[in-house]
């Protein structure tokens, strides 16, 4: 039994591939807890960032700078009365939030947080992610229909139309990135032998970027960038976020498809929505932003193709310098909270809050110091960069919401079908033509 547990520690495979169910379970639990943690942080961060962008303070009462606000919210939601409309379709009304959460979390089975840090690696990885996340819309449709009310039904209709339209543009953008995995050349314009050994596996896609020494967003510049742009727009529409939040447009439809939901069921919808945001962001990160790779992948040390980067101290100087990034980020956050604790007004009522902020800063500094230790520092690298990129995407989501007004529905459809779809087809064609460049040139020579 002990051998079974420890044998995986020296494996270079994901637990799913190694067939180790125990470690697979551990990974599932850790990823579940981690994503829930991101949702909690996002709950606080979104309100805080939105408030600062609108020159407000945001939550300030519960804990220092409102840091305990998510916990207070969770207690409120759990103790609220759970209302089910009497005319609702009860089994489907019950199933809808469960379905949304299940779908949102099951996508994370294939998300690679590192070369070995995924529950499993599938041959159809990206196809699985797109397919399963497209099932999420069924939960919204179920919720809207089962509520037996007008606003939810309108929200569900809008949601299904929107998601089906944007999935096509999204798929085309994804295909152009997958075509790039088959072009083995090095550098932004590198074209290899063109043997066509592309891959759909999430880990394989990141490894292709590592071997080509370029993130696919910079591949065939600006082709990769345009594909990423299409995906980034479709991604916001898929997750029903502003400026594409028509299914829950509060000025038109009250709260859209979840108008009739309250308490725990409503919070499940919220959990599903934010977990879905993390999921689509991690698709974008894996396909275009190099997954777990740190910035400047062309300067990687010699050990880049080996899953155990930390067992090879002869890595380059750049790798060594970048390995301090996680600790530095943590220490910067600690410094920030110390700075704000010192700026707190000296008032007896704020004494506990000030102490709490100091304590929070101490915890962050402690984590930062632990991350400085060489074994931890090297092992945490890939996970850190993946989560850091997710955090950037989450901040962008908040930024979009604060900046752009909501689209009108016909404008939304026009953007999806008349702009993004032709653009996606064009990007796919251009990628193929550049990728097959040598072959096409040889063929033309033969004709002429």
């Amino acid at each position: 039994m002990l051998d079974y547990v420890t044998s995986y520690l020296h494996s270079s495979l994901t637990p799913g591939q190694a067939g180790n169910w125990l470690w697979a379970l551990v990974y599932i639990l850790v990823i579940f807890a981690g994503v829930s943690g991101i949702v909690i942080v996002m709950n606080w961060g979104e309100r805080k960032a939105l408030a600062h962008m609108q020159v407000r303070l945001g939550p300030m009462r519960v804990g220092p700078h409102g840091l305990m606000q998510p916990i207070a919210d969770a207690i409120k939601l759990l103790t609220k009365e759970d209302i089910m409309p009497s005319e609702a379709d009860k089994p489907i009304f019950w199933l809808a939030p469960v379905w949304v959460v299940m779908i949102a979390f099951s996508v994370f089975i294939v998300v690679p947080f590192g070369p070995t840090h995924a529950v499993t690696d599938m041959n159809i990885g990206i196809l699985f992610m797109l397919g399963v996340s497209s099932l999420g819309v069924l939960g919204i449709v179920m919720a809207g229909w089962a509520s037996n009310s007008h606003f939810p039904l309108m929200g569900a209709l809008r949601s299904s139309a929107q998601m089906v339209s944007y999935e096509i543009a999204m798929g085309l953008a994804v295909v152009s990135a997958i075509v790039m995995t088959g072009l083995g050349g090095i550098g932004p314009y590198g074209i290899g032998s063109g043997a066509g050994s592309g891959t759909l596996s999430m880990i394989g896609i990141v490894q292709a970027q590592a071997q080509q020494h370029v993130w696919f967003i910079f591949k065939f510049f600006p082709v990769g960038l345009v594909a990423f742009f299409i995906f980034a727009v479709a991604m916001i529409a898929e997750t029903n976020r502003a400026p594409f939040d028509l299914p829950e447009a509060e000025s038109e439809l009250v709260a859209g498809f979840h108008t009739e939901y309250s308490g725990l069921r409503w919070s499940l919808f919220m959990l599903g929505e934010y977990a879905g945001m993390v999921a689509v962001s991690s698709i974008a990160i894996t396909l275009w932003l190099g997954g777990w790779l740190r910035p400047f992948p062309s300067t990687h040390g010699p050990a880049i193709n080996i899953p155990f980067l930390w067992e090879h101290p002869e890595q380059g100087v750049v790798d060594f310098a970048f390995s301090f990034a996680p600790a530095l980020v943590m220490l910067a956050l600690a410094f920030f909270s110390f700075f704000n604790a010192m700026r707190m007004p000296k008032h007896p009522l704020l004494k506990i809050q000030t102490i709490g902020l100091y304590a929070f800063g101490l915890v962050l500094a402690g984590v930062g110091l632990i991350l400085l230790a060489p074994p931890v520092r090297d092992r945490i690298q890939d996970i850190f960069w993946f989560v850091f990129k997710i955090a950037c995407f989450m901040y962008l989501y908040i930024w979009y919401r604060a900046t752009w007004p909501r689209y009108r529905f016909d404008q939304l459809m026009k953007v999806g079908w008349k702009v993004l779809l032709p653009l996606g087809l064009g990007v796919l064609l251009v990628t193929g033509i550049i990728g097959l460049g040598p072959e096409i040139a040889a063929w033309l020579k033969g004709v002429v």
Partner: protein
Amino acid sequence: MTPVAPTFFFYLLSTVAVVGAILVITRKNPVHSALSLIFTLLALAGLYLMLYAPFVAGVQIILYAGGIMVLFLFVIMLVNIERSQREVQFNQQWHVGIIASLALGFLFLYVYKHGSSIFPVNPVSMPEPMNTQQVGMALFRNYLLPFEIASLLLLVAIVGAVVMAKKRI
């Protein structure tokens, strides 16, 4: 990797598929029928995975469960449920239907009993990690022309649907 408890999962997935399929035709509410059909399709995707065909399973989920069923529900949600629940569920042809399905069932039983020479007992197993690549090679190298003709047919159908639905473009 070797599959875990294949017998158990086969019976689990087949039960879900069969029960879902029965619910599709017995439920009076069309939305309930459509949701049961989704469960059937998902169970079938699981069966494809067990047959070492991950690409077919992925396409099954992304196209049928994710795309087509959403459009089904989209249309069904606009149907007047009260009227559809009052209508007679099975039409007068169910006698014929039972005879046809029994005949098909006996055919399956006969093939199962005597057809062991037609179907190999140990089918050639495709290496799972390269399944998608092999499907791609087959479609775009060996069978490119049939593939393109099929997609042209679909394109004609799409154009036809648009022309019939929208008289003035």
